[in-house]
């Protein structure tokens, strides 16, 4: 952030200094500095997002009625969407016990993504690898343990040797299946969310920086005006990306869990 502030202060004389990327994503500790429990801006955003998600759901369902009020109708729409469009559509009726888990993932990721465009916060906590990696690890545990519970120890055998393949092909298929199921799945889950939010944060920083540096700089004003016109579009785009990434994370969790419910045959 210091890069952005520096560009603001020196905007006219020293235009458009793009700060080093790490400076946009690393913040100094605020509380408990030097201990393993140091809290910086990212941690505060995560904690606030968690509290906000809990508060929203608790408020919406504080006294459930048969004829829902506004808040309850909105929250029911969200839960119903995840239940019908994600859980049941992907996993069938067996997906119903997973609806709370999927709703939690969706809400947590979505609210963390939205902080990318919230004024004065302007930082998506999901653009630090720790949080996507934690979610991916959680989903990995969910589908791995589901597979072990539903299929027993044969789960790993079923993954490694999909049926209906002539046996010489197993030399090729088995390593691919093992690597893609147990290593590539969580890796892509985490990297997808992380990279989307990092890219969004950098793009928004650059567009805001351009506005700051060029809008009142005299000769560069047209560039600043173009950036000013593009900024709302980009903010809208990032809002869409935030919802879409939360949706994709949730639906992939459902697909992975659904794939370990039954052996392929």
């Amino acid at each position: 952030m210091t890069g952005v502030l520096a560009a603001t202060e020196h905007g006219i004389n020293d235009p458009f200094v793009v700060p080093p990327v790490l400076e946009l994503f690393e913040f100094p500790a605020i509380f408990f500095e030097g201990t393993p429990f140091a809290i910086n801006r990212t941690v505060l955003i995560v904690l606030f997002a968690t509290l906000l998600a809990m508060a929203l759901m608790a408020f919406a369902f504080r006294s459930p009625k048969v004829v829902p009020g506004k808040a309850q109708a909105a929250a029911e729409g969200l839960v119903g969407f995840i239940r019908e469009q994600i859980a049941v559509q992907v996993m069938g009726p067996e997906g119903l016990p997973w609806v709370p888990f999927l709703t939690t993932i969706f809400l947590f990721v979505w609210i963390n993504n939205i902080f990318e465009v919230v004024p004065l916060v302007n930082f998506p906590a999901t653009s630090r690898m720790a949080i996507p990696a934690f979610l991916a690890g959680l989903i990995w545990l969910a589908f791995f343990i589901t597979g072990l519970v539903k299929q027993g120890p044969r789960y790993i055998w079923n993954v490694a040797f999909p049926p209906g393949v002539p046996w010489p092909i197993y030399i090729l298929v088995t390593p691919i299946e093992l690597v893609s199921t147990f290593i590539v799945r969580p890796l892509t889950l985490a990297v997808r969310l992380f990279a989307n939010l990092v890219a969004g944060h950098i793009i928004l920083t650059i567009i805001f920086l351009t506005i700051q540096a060029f809008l009142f700089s005299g000769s560069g004003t047209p560039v600043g005006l173009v950036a000013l016109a593009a900024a709302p579009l980009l903010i809208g785009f990032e809002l869409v990306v935030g919802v879409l990434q939360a949706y994709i994370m949730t639906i992939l969790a459902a697909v992975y869990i659904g794939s370990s419910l039954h052996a392929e045959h």
Partner: protein
Amino acid sequence: MEGDIAAIGKGLVFGLGAIGPGIGIGYLVGKAIEAMARQPEAAGMVRTTMFLGIAFVEALALFGFVLSFIIQ
């Protein structure tokens, strides 16, 4: 590596990595729209599968994006 060559490499990694997924997502969404237009009652299923496919294809481009930062 020297800074200038590294910068070109970063651009190449992301740029070349984005070509394939760009073409792939184009085909994917185009075919999905075709399917939805032919059979609107299957639109929900097609849309879910389309997003799944997009997620897998897009991951390749994002690997390029992340790698471009990892290159020193």
